[in-house]
């Protein structure tokens, strides 16, 4: 069998994992499943695309950084796009989720996130049409790296970026006061207030991190595949599968869950056929949950 599926799986897994971090944080800290999270990815990709366009209009055509398919405009645009997507998540919380959360019914917030998901997606279709678009139409030559595997420079760069971001978030969660406050809030919201944690502030940080990482995942999809309004929605089930597989609340779990789902799907495409792709990841999910219902890195409530 061809080992190319390893690279494909790692890349798909990175995108899923970056999205799943946001899903798992929202779930454990705000206690609801945010079905609009996939659409943050799409918004992030389109926001980044728009900023790239603006930079192009201001500075003219800029050559890519060899051997990558993109240059500094995309890198700068990605950072701005992350900020925009984080703010979008904050805004959505402010006008929608926070008000419903205050009423105390989790299922209402979940249904509202479905609505938000559709609204966000429709807005993208309205503004950018549903026709796929690309950051670059340049074709990259994949380099052989042995074992029959080929990778493009873009793919290597994006895998490295994922690793850096995941380590960064893990460090933030475990080594900083903000991260400890997030953990505290997910374990006992009432006690978190008693020990002096400003819950509203921690919630804001959670949305910004989730939104920013969703943007990166969206841009990865945009660079490696294509940009279209449905790109994030299509990632929703694998993202939730990854978050649950890894154990709700765990950042390393979400990433590992993402990689497992990504690799399983890529392997399934090669071994059984593309139509079985989604089925395989869900069979793995169910199998893990039968043996370990709290997920790989999950912790039992005490």
């Amino acid at each position: 069998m061809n080992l190319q599926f390893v690279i494909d799986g790692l890349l798909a897994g990175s995108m899923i994992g970056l999205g799943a971090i946001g899903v798992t944080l929202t779930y454990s800290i705000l206690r609801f499943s945010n079905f609009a999270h996939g659409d943050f990815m799409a918004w992030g990709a389109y926001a980044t695309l728009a900023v790239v366009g603006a930079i192009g209009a201001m500075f003219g055509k800029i050559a890519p950084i060899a051997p990558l398919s993109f240059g500094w405009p995309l890198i700068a645009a990605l950072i701005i796009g992350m900020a925009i997507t984080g703010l979008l998540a904050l805004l959505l919380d402010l006008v929608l989720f926070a008000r419903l959360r205050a009423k105390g019914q989790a299922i209402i917030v979940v249904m509202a996130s479905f609505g938000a998901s559709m609204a966000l997606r429709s807005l993208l279709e309205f503004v950018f049409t549903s026709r796929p678009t690309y950051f670059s139409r340049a074709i990259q030559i994949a380099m052989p790296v042995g074992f029959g595997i080929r990778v493009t420079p873009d793919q290597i760069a994006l895998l490295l970026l994922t690793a850096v971001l995941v380590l960064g978030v893990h460090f933030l969660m475990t080594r900083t006061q903000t991260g400890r406050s997030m953990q505290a809030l997910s374990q006992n919201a009432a006690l978190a207030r008693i020990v002096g944690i400003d819950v509203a502030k921690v919630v804001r940080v959670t949305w910004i991190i989730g939104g920013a990482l969703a943007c990166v995942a969206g841009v990865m999809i945009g660079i490696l595949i294509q940009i279209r309004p449905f790109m994030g929605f299509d990632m929703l089930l694998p993202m939730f599968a990854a978050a649950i597989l890894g154990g709700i609340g765990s950042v390393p779990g979400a990433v590992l869950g993402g990689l497992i789902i990504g690799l399983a799907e890529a392997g399934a495409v090669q071994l059984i056929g593309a139509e079985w792709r989604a089925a395989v990841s869900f069979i793995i999910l169910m199998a893990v949950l039968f043996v370990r219902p709290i997920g790989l890195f999950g912790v039992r409530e005490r």
Partner: protein
Amino acid sequence: MSQAVLDVRDLEAGYEPGVPIVRGASIIVNKGEIVVVLGPNGAGKSSLIKAIAGLVPITRGTVLLDGKDITAAPAHTMVRLGLAFVPQTENIFPLMSVEDNLRVACGILKPRETPARIEEMYAAFPDLARQRKTVAGNLSGGQRQMLAVARALIVHPKVLVLDEPSAGLSPKFVSTVFEMLAGIRKSGVTILLVEQNARAALAIGDRAYVLVEGKDRHEGVASELWNDPVVAELYLGQRRLDSESKGSAA
């Protein structure tokens, strides 16, 4: 009067509007004192101190801390104002290490002071020092209570407020916890505590209030209150019922 650290006047509070649980309670805690709030089940003892700590909506009355009005301040601002609260149950973060439980409570300290302050807590609670990396959910009941108290003390509160620190503990740990509180008072911390275990609480307390139906009905010196006939009338009948129904009540 001027040295009252905590001055609660005519407090009315409750979860539902129009259904007060605390109905005009007034208590004073002077500097360096241990003040105990006693009362039959359902008297509103817990609600009273939760209202003081900003966790139950206040509908009337005032709470002064060192002369400053802190009535109904948001719960998360209380540690900064100088009031540290230890809830009755679920008073630690079970999935975090002992050390992270302490560290997460240091938000109002300067980051540079935090490590030294944590070491001071370890010096005061050697049991915790031996378990700094232990996940807090694996601690024994008495150690959890210790961690909860250390976490509250770490921010140098003007007053430490505890909700039934002996609840759910085995008799052996109950005496450990009360000895710990007596020791904390010796170090100069002012303490307000609500307790079901009247005998043990009065043994370490300076003054006590008896709360009945949400109102302070009696006040006295802790050591005299145990034999006070008025207290027996307000409280004893109820207490006997408690010990029959619970069996293990002290």
